[in-house]
């Protein structure tokens, strides 16, 4: 238990960092400085990394933020988000191949389809909580996987969708370096949308529901409908990431729908820090970079290494990387002010 306060003087002292909303926030200048630094890194990234890896990081950043919207801000652990990432990847690929739209339009079509798919899945899943919610989402994701596997005339089954074009008004985006800058604005918009959702009146209700659903209901909030809305928004953002991933790889394989993809998304968020939003971005960068480095070094059991790191982080830094650093910074800040 935390200590209690009974006087204004005690209350003025910042409480333990909650990582949330107004209770414990970094000073304004620091937040702007972090934002500027983040944007600088985002613009510099393909100069410091293999551009294809940088593209993957952007896509996974969106995926992670989508999962954190549910896990960190609504209290729902989806173990089936590959359904939305993967469905959008396939729809984006199909639209880009058969309709020949510019890739942002194809990605939008993919993300909207993912959001649409999230309506029935979410409707049935939000009636459950905890592990049961995770199991329901996993079950639906497996169904989507098998449909894609069987529906070979459309998805090409195990061969995958080949030759997804990077069409954008005739621009030559075949170089990953330029493609990175073409998708960066879309990714930043997606991240901005997630940030806006978290810091909206709606986001405030979500946090209430996460912390105490019974109390939220007693206040008159229809908890299931709020959770469903969050689920659909999350499906859309995950779909944005999945669609860009398909165009980035110019290829869609069944792996995008596999349960290990859902699991990786959860790992990325836990590693970065649940309920921190930007922690997911950081987690995506670390996991994608690490996996690339391991496979490049000829490592065969990548899962063992990332899994090991995951276990270590969960055991040693329960708040994840972003959350732990934020907690340390907060403590330092509080001790300086006293």
């Amino acid at each position, binding site marked *: 238990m935390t200590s209690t306060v009974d006087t204004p003087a005690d209350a003025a002292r910042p409480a333990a960092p909650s990582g949330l909303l*107004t209770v414990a926030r970094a000073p304004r200048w620091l937040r702007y400085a972090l934002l500027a630094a983040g944007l600088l890194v985002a613009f510099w990234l393909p100069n410091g990394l293999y551009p294809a890896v940088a593209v993957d990081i952007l896509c996974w950043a969106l995926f992670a933020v989508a999962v954190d919207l549910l896990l960190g801000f609504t209290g729902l652990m989806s173990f089936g988000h590959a359904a939305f990432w993967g469905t959008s990847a396939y729809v984006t690929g199909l639209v880009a191949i058969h309709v020949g739209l510019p890739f942002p339009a194809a990605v939008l079509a993919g993300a909207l389809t993912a959001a649409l798919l999230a309506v029935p899945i979410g409707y049935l899943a939000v009636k459950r909580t905890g592990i049961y919610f995770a199991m329901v989402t996993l079950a639906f994701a497996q169904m989507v996987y098998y449909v894609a596997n069987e529906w070979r005339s459309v998805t090409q089954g195990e061969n995958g969708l080949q030759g997804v074009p990077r069409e954008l008004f005739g621009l030559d985006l075949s170089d990953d370096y330029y493609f990175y800058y073409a998708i960066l604005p879309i990714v930043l918009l997606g991240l901005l949308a997630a940030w806006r959702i978290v810091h909206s009146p709606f986001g405030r209700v979500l946090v209430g529901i996460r912390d105490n659903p019974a109390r939220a209901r007693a*206040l008159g909030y229809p908890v299931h409908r709020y959770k469903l809305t969050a689920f659909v928004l999350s499906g859309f953002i995950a779909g944005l990431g999945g669609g860009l991933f398909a165009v980035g790889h110019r290829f869609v394989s069944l792996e995008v729908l596999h349960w290990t993809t859902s699991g990786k998304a959860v790992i990325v968020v836990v590693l970065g820090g649940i309920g921190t939003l930007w922690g997911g971005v950081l987690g995506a960068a670390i996991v994608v970079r690490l996996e690339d480095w391991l496979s490049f070094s000829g490592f065969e059991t990548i899962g063992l290494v990332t899994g090991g790191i995951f276990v270590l982080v969960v055991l040693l830094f329960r708040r994840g990387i972003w959350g732990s650093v934020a907690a340390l910074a907060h403590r330092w800040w509080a001790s300086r002010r006293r």
Partner: protein
Amino acid sequence: MAGQALLSARGLTRDFRGFRAVDGVDLDVAPDSVHALVGPNGAGKTTLFNLLTGFLKPSGGRIELAGRDVTGLPPERVARLGVARSFQITSLFPQLSAREHVELALQSPSGLGWRFWRSSALMRRYTDRATELLAMVGLAELAEAPAEALAYGRKRALELAIALALDPKVLLLDEPTAGMGLEDVDRTVDLIARVRQGRTVVMVEHNMSVVGRLADTVTVLQAGKVLVEGPYEEVRADERVITAYLGAADAAH
């Protein structure tokens, strides 16, 4: 009779796997009254509360609010229709500040909560009213403290503030003074006496002196049934109540 009651129950029953926790309860809560539910542990008071607020579905019977059938409605609908409740075990959002609690309650009927594309700064429109309500329950100076850091009595006061923020027709308080020291009990009684003006209050309460100071009508429950109902003085003198409450003590003599 039933037409005059603001909140009424007819033959309300709830079974838990063969155990009948509430058994055919008739209840009429008159407008602008304070109605206390008392009874020994396990008499079904909290179950009755959960039935009245939609947190449990009745196995049988009927509930009306201002003449409207509300039987079986989910809790958020019941709350929207003007029934606000507090919980026996303090039930707050640990990470939100006291002010954020009240703002969240004030926002509830407006639909602003759906605006995921707007800034939460919009909720500042509720700040003044929230400050007023927090001052009313004596939390003005702790408005920015996170709920998890508040002392027990202050948490109970915050519960009351968020229930009031819903501007309810009926305020249901589940043991508002449970676990409080004498000073906090007095403060809470004064507070309820103040907020009851123009409102209807139903409360579960163990502390008979609190019931005596506040209640217009008292319903005594025993084993899920209504044992006696009437004004406090009358109920207190009723032999059946004395037996129900003091039976164990008498047997010990």
